[in-house]
């Protein structure tokens, strides 16, 4: 028996391996396609919001950066993909890539400035980015459509074969595949040395500075990566709903994605897969009757989660499992 077989090293090595329950979200996504054929359009929305929440998990759950401006990147991606399609570039996959790169660049540039600060100043700057971009999207109405939104987003079939239909069949599968690919990437990222150093920064910045980790550079890198993924999520919205509104780039959208992630459980990569569907389904059934009350209950729920259920739904599940095992 060598020492590596047990102890803390083995525990870390084991973390990287795929476990059986990691297949559950994917089984659910495939099953939902066949079980609810009438709700595939909603399903596609849930999938791109899941991707959006996943991107936030990288910076919030792993990097420990509290941001209220993540919708800025979602919006940049959405407008980039939308504008590309409106101006004649109708190939969807390259559209996604361009949107991701555009949002990544915005993330890189704003991250370089924002991440030098901490606490309330950082919060203010992330908010300022989203308000500023919203203002630009609103004022530049000749380009973006302003408050009316960007209309006339039309796309070629995916890979020249699958046409976007009104039932959301193509949209659902397309979103699911993009989500899967980027989930693999995110999973790889958080288990890499880079991901471990992020967790270190979240847990103890001083110590990471002390051992010579380039903290600022690491944070800016993950900020830009998360921005790019958020941009792809925004592009998926633009392509599948064929419309980009100002709400794609609003404070409310930032708040929503934060809530989704926290309801699910941040810092565990699967919080997004629980929180986003739960939020979207609740919103779909409750907010239709009265969006104002929806925000009231949402606020109340948020206060209760913070006071009584830190760690979100998955955190509650963890606690329940621990109690059962005892």
């Amino acid at each position, binding site marked *: 028996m060598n020492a590596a077989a047990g102890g803390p090293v083995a525990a870390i090595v084991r973390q990287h391996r795929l476990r059986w329950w990691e297949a559950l979200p994917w089984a659910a996504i495939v099953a939902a396609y066949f079980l609810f054929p009438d709700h595939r359009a909603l399903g596609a929305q849930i999938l791109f919001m899941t991707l959006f929440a996943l991107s936030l998990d990288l910076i*919030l759950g792993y990097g420990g950066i*509290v941001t*209220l401006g993540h919708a800025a990147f979602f919006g940049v991606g959405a407008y980039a993909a939308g504008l590309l399609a409106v101006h004649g570039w109708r190939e969807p996959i390259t559209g996604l890539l361009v949107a991701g790169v555009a949002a990544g660049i915005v993330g890189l540039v704003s991250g370089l*400035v924002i991440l*030098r*600060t*901490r*606490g*309330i*100043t950082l*919060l*203010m*700057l992330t*908010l*300022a*980015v989203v*308000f*500023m971009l919203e*203002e*630009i999207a609103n*004022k530049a109405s000749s380009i973006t459509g302003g408050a009316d939104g960007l209309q006339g987003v039309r796309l070629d079939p995916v890979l020249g074969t699958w046409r976007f239909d009104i039932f959301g069949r193509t949209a659902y599968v397309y979103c699911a595949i993009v989500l899967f690919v980027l989930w693999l990437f995110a999973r790889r990222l958080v288990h890499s040395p880079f991901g471990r150093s992020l967790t270190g920064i979240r847990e103890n910045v001083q110590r990471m500075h002390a051992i010579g980790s380039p903290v600022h550079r690491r944070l800016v890198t993950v900020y830009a990566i998360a921005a790019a993924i958020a941009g792809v999520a925004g592009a998926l919205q633009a392509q599948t709903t064929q419309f980009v509104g100002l709400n794609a780039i609003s*404070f409310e959208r930032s*708040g929503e994605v*934060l*809530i989704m992630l*926290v309801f699910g459980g*941040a810092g565990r990569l699967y919080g997004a897969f629980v929180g986003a569907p739960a939020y979207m389904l609740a919103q779909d059934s409750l907010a239709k009757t009265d969006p*104002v*009350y929806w*925000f*009231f209950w*949402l*606020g*109340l*729920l*948020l*206060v209760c*989660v*913070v*006071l009584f259920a*830190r760690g979100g739904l998955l955190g509650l599940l963890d606690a329940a499992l621990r109690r059962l095992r005892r």
Partner: protein
Amino acid sequence: MDALLAAAVSILFHGLAYAMVLYLISVGLSVTMGLMGFANLAHGVFAMAGGYVTVTLMNRHGVPFALAIVVACTTVALASAALERLLYARLYRAGELDQVLFTIGLVFMAIAAAHFTWGPLPQGFTPPDALRGQVELGGRVFPAYRLFLIAVGAALVVALWLGLEHTRLGARIRAAVDNRRMAESLGIDVGRLFTVTFALGSGLAALGGGLGAEILAINPRYAIEHLVSFLIVVAVGGLGSLRGSFFAALLLGIGDTACKYLVPELGVFFVYVAVRAVLLWRPAGLFGRAA
């Protein structure tokens, strides 16, 4: 030349009035942030509540302006003290994320409650008769109400400064902001001090919301719409600094008014760029100490 001067005077005047409102609302946030480091994004809710109470008392119940303002301040201050003891106090040791989520939850609830009670439209605010109309000063005419705002704001700035520098409460607050542990070892009950400061800050915010209802229209989204402005004042001024908040409010008030007047299309853009430049130069704010 005369037109240029007139524009400059107008920008300065309106900017000053806006700055006073910003200062009144944000100063409490700055001091409570400096004391407890609590990320209270719901501070704007207190200003909004002050505005709603003032406007409702005046418009629906015919209460005189001064009385309405006083009632608004007192109710908001008392309500915020209760809120602080019941809920906020549980989260002082919690992480920043929890504080942010909790206060956003409060903001969402406040938006819904305001929407439900007063409807989605902005509330009309009519200054009392004595403060309506124009006043002539040095050959130019100014709206009387804004002149009143500036005067009241300036008086309060002085009063706050004197209060912080020359009263026992002020000395305690300064001590606790400087070094909380040391202040506690000297027998200052920082918890109670914080409740009092929190209530005072919320009362001032309510005052700002009520007095400033003409400039920042009272509507359900108030607490979100102006959140960035309040946070800019706090961050640019430096946490817990009365002087910093004042200069930051002045800069933001006049700068914002100037940008909106001179380049209406890109006004907001310039303001944010300027804020970023200031914070790159001094990350802890103009009068903040490096952490």
